[in-house]
């Protein structure tokens, strides 16, 4: 290790010029990174993480500038450098990896040309030399058949592969500093786990200093040595990773940790504590501590003067005047303990009869005709088999979670149930009625009882109408209230989702993502539905807002006795929320059963792999190295036999490739679709997770 840090940031402040005047996006940020060290920047969106990253390479756009402080890269000041010098550094000694791999690669250029270009520009290599270096770099990131990758274009690679190419590109010039801005956020958990492994490994190998930005504490815990927590443009806590996850000292850090559902916590043993309020607007910053308005532990003194960043224990800094007290006592310890059995299970009552039955449903999308022959029916039509033979049932008042990677047919299944798609085969039953048809052909009484909450908060509301008007439309459809009572009903619904009456006249663009999601829920429950389908309702939201929405949905479920189907790629959310879980893979069920049975052995090999991939916000936990290779195969031409056989780490042999896996009934409605015996499946669990805590 050299004696000087690779990067030293001192009192950095970044100012943006806007129409309403200058705003300070980032202020008073100081940290240092040594070579071989990884510092993680965490915080909610709008806290200035990315701004810091862009400030490091002085790439703030036309209206941004570094207004104060210094950035020393290898001891030299980065401010006031000419555009030319900066350009030489960027992509050379300082490399960046961004969130969206697809938009970071040029779609019109072969991968090989994009990679060699940087070497030829920065190091003046010949094309042949550059090619050899690229092949080596691709081999370093474990790209299968690097030769052919060089010839391919971005769209011919999967998301994980694209990100590997970008990491390889970033490392080509052997940078001293690597800046990664949410590099795994757009990826599936299984792919994310593999990319994180890779980042950790390359870190050691190349001894690069890394600034790693993520909103996900679990991811940070996996790769970072040091963690810097940012809030409203300020650095509020900075500490070694092991330290901060064990004993956080700033209430904001604690708040972030308390909103996370824990994938290892059995259902009903954990309450989420959302952080109230939202990140303040930079025009309207509180005097005193910026976090005070949202802080549970704020006292009068907090609001008087901004607290300084103080080193409390060696290397552990916190910007909170009460942190000193908390070195001894930890008032939030209780909220992490697993002895908090609220019992919402009472709502789930199998005697109530099934609300929903899905019986051998297949939803296929026809492929466009490729040839004239096909158009006239001379060739067999090809289909995308998005959902292929799924059966399940849901009892009244229960919540079913559906998990799986993207492309596994979760959303299509939801659409087939709710009536946005029509199943090609099979039967969907709802309250004893056959509803195997699209919404337009359903009876209004069925429509009212079966509603949906959508994923994308920005798409869920029509931008042309006020919030009140949109909810009112649903109220008019679903009830026969007289005109003069509709407004009152809308206000009641707004209150049910914890929004005030003053939201009635607001337009979607005036409210935050979490609030939009609440309006979406209010609209869905207008007719007091029996079943609510939620398609990734929280995945586009910040953790603190996620917790609030999940808690709200939990309340609604208890209050209205609504059954819920919750689709999610996040296994922690599903464990927190659901009574039953279905694991889907490539249009089929891999495993289905009561929630606690799914998260304990015996596991389906796929479930085990998904669980192993979840990044846990605790760096002291032993790491589970069970990883899935490759990608979900195309649903146009799924593998024969067991769909999972191409990626299964526990594949038996040819039987998996030729024979469909049998249904293994483990009792208590727990079913696994696998060729392994029950005993063998038990072992899969213990091999990868250590012995089952219940049996030891």
């Amino acid at each position, binding site marked *: 290790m050299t004696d000087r840090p690779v990067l030293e940031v001192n009192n950095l402040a970044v100012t943006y010029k806007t129409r309403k005047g200058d705003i300070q996006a980032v202020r008073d940020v100081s940290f240092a990174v040594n070579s071989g060290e990884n510092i993680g920047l965490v915080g909610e969106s709008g806290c200035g993480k990315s701004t810091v990253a862009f400030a490091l390479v002085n790439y703030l756009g036309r209206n941004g500038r570094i207004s104060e402080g210094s950035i020393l890269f290898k001891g030299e000041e980065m401010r006031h450098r000419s555009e030319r010098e900066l350009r030489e550094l960027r992509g050379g000694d300082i490399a960046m990896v961004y969130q969206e791999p697809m938009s970071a690669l040029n779609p019109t250029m072969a991968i090989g040309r994009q990679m060699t270009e940087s070497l030829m520009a920065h190091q003046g290599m010949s094309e042949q030399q550059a090619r050899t270096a690229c092949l080596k770099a691709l081999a370093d990131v474990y790209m299968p058949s690097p030769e052919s990758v060089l010839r391919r274009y971005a769209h011919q690679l999967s998301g994980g592969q694209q990100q590997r190419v970008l990491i390889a590109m970033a490392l080509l010039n052997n940078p001293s500093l690597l800046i990664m801005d949410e590099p795994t956020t757009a990826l599936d958990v299984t792919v994310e786990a593999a990319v994180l492994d890779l980042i950790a490994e390359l870190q050691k190998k190349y001894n690069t200093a890394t600034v790693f930005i993520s909103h996900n504490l679990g991811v940070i815990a996996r790769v970072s040595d040091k963690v810097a927590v940012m809030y409203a443009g300020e650095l509020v806590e900075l500490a070694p990773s092991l330290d901060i996850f064990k004993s956080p000292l700033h209430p904001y850090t604690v708040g972030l940790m308390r909103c996370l559902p824990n994938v290892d916590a059995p259902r009903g043993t954990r309450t989420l504590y*959302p952080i*109230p*309020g*939202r990140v303040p*607007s930079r025009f*309207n910053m509180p005097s005193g501590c910026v976090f005070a*308005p949202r802080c549970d532990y704020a006292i009068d003194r907090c609001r008087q003067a901004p607290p300084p960043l103080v080193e409390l224990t060696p290397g552990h800094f916190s910007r909170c005047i009460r942190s000193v007290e908390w070195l001894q006592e930890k008032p939030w310890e209780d909220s992490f303990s697993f002895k908090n059995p609220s019992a919402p299970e009472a709502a789930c009552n199998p005697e109530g009869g099934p609300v929903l039955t899905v019986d051998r449903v297949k939803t296929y999308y026809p492929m466009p005709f490729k040839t004239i022959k096909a158009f006239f029916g001379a060739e067999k039509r090809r289909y995308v088999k998005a959902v292929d033979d799924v059966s399940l049932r849901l009892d009244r008042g229960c919540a079913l979670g559906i998990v799986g990677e993207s492309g596994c047919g979760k959303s299509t299944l939801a659409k087939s149930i*709710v*009536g*946005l798609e029509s199943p090609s085969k099979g039967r969907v039953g709802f309250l004893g009625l056959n509803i195997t048809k699209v*919404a*337009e052909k*359903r009876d*209004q009484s069925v*429509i*009212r009882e*079966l*509603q*949906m909450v*959508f*994923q*994308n908060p920005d*798409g*869920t*509301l*029509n*931008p*042309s*109408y*006020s919030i009140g008007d949109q909810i009112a*439309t*649903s109220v008019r*459809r*679903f009830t026969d209230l007289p005109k003069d009572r509709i407004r009152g009903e809308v206000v009641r619904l707004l209150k049910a989702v*914890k*929004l*005030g009456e*003053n*939201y*009635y*006249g*607001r*337009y979607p663009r*005036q*409210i*935050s993502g*979490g*609030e939009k999601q*609440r309006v*979406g829920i209010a*609209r869905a429950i207008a007719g007091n539905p029996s079943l609510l389908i939620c398609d990734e309702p929280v995945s586009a939201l910040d953790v*603190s*807002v996620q917790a*609030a929405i999940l*808690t*709200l949905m939990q309340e609604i479920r208890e209050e209205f006795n609504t059954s819920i189907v919750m689709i999610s790629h996040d296994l922690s959310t599903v464990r927190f929320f659901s009574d039953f879980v279905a694991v889907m893979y490539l249009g089929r069920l891999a495993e289905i059963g009561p929630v606690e049975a799914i998260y304990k052995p015996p596991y389906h090999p796929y479930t085990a792999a998904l669980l192993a991939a979840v990044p846990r916000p605790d760096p002291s936990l032993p790491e589970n190295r069970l990883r899935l290779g490759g990608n979900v195969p195309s649903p146009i031409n799924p593998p024969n036999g067991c769909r999972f056989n191409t990626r299964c780490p526990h594949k038996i042999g040819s039987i998996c490739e030729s024979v469909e896996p049998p249904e293994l009934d483990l009792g208590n409605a727990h079913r696994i679709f696998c060729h392994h015996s029950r005993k063998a499946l038990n072992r899969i669990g213990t091999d990868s997770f250590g012995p089952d805590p219940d049996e030891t």
Partner: protein
Amino acid sequence: MTSESIAEGVAPERGWQRLRNSLAILIESRTALLGLSIVLVWVVIAIAAPLVTQHDPLHQDYLHLNKGPSAEHILGTDHMGRDVWARLAYGARTILTLAPLSVAASFVLGLVLGLPSGYFGGWIDEVIMRVLDALMAFPIILLYMIIISAIGASAANVVLAMAIGGAPGIARLIRALTMDIRTREYIAAARLRGDSAFRIMMMEILPNCRGPLIVDFLLRVGYAAFYIGTLGFLGLGLPPPTPDWGGMVQEGHTYMTNNLWPVLSATLAIISLVVGLNLFADGLREESMRYQ
């Protein structure tokens, strides 16, 4: 749980506030403001035509044929001794009525064809689009000539011809916008509320197309003014003696060598109106894009 509903003081928007916000966009963009000013000048002239000139555009003064500008006739007179400025001012009335009217008519046609085409897709889309393709394959001016020579030259027929000629382009634009918007989740939410396809198209999709449609409307009014001029020049516009800018160019061009004024002023009038509308549309588009 207090939730994140402690919002900052965002007041709900009322009607007049929304109007003020839209006007703010206008003032923000110099281009749009300049364009709007030019257009407004013509609008004022058209409305106040009897006030800006005391001459009758149809009155023929055989003692003053093809005279240049004078105190009496500020832009001179044409070959029949009619006051050029008066014909210009009254001609503005014609063009400023016919151009928006014909574009509005083609928007109605375009909506009727474009919305279902984009919303339903499939064979409905195929059929509508192929018909429109066939229509678009005609050179536009030829299409107008065919239609007008078949049904005769009159104000109503000019509007009809231009409505038919403009519809394919508008239908395509609306179809593209609809295809994008129909994948949004609020459309799914409307379907799951039991809304009819008609209501979804009119109430959920159409209002969200308004930005690009307004810009397109303004651009097309500009082109329409231009085409009405062209039709007038080709003798397919309004029957004489109606004051019509295109007609003025047509009638005047034979005497151009000894009196340039009628042709020149009518040409400049057409150009300024078209440029004004284009500037206005461009400014609006730039300014509305900036906030997306």
